[in-house]
């Protein structure tokens, strides 16, 4: 890739569908593995994509996860139509979750998704609109000099 080059991918995510859940993140990981990137960053990106995808599945109606890779960064954008996040500061707290018991029994709803993303990513930007939806943008730098 040159600096003018970038790679884009956009994958649909169905809300409430635990059969297809994880497919977008898997695809993103497999795609990133085809680039010559540090494995640790690919892992981070896969974790972020999976948590963001699962938040659409568990908390929203429908959405998509996009991937953009440039020379400088891996950017993952998860956008959904859904209830929005009522209190983002609260949602960022480890252990805070509004997931139902049914979702917890499947192993989700630990309230660790957004904190996990925060830990893995260099930048996390959350825009959310009540009863409309949420946009989560995750940036992982590929250059250590802050670029």
């Amino acid at each position, binding site marked *: 890739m040159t600096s003018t080059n970038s790679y884009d991918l956009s994958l649909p995510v169905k809300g409430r569908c*635990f*059969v297809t*859940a*994880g497919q977008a*993140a*898997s695809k993103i*990981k497999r795609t990133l593995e085809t680039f010559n990137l*540090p*494995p*640790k960053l690919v*892992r981070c990106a*896969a*974790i972020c994509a*999976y*948590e963001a995808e*699962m938040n659409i599945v568990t908390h929203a109606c429908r959405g998509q996860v996009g991937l953009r890779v440039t020379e400088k960064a891996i950017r993952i954008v998860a956008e959904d139509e859904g209830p929005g996040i009522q209190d983002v500061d609260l949602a960022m707290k480890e252990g805070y979750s509004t997931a139902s018991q049914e979702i917890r029994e*499947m*192993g*989700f*709803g*630990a*309230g*660790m*998704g957004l*904190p*996990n993303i925060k*830990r893995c990513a260099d930048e996390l930007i959350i825009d959310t609109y009540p009863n409309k939806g949420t946009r989560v943008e995750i940036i992982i730098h590929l250059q250590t000099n802050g670029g």
Partner: protein
Amino acid sequence: MTLADVVRLLEAEVLVAPADESIKVAAGGAADLISDVLAFVAKKNTLLITGLTNPQVVTTADLLDLTGIIFVRGKKPGQDVLKMAQQRGLPLLRTHLHMYEACGILYKAGLRSSRADQDDDNDFD
């Protein structure tokens, strides 16, 4: 430790066989929550010890490149999950032991934690 050692130590049944029985297991982690697994696996060749048997656990293992999964308390996943693991080349085991016991036995046998720590040359990077 190898997967074959895990099978022997935990009297496990092999549900999906590894391509190679001598495959290395270098670290272990136990959880029943997907986000916990995503948060703690910082080592290569990690074995996941869990009571979760749904398809998401296989997806998670695949995303994290886990070495294998062992289900505790005799839990057996459905055909769909077995098939997913086969397709992905992910070894699945199960033991009648409870999670605490399975972890204790593996830890005593020298299997270390998969979480990130000071020492190790086995971290991802």
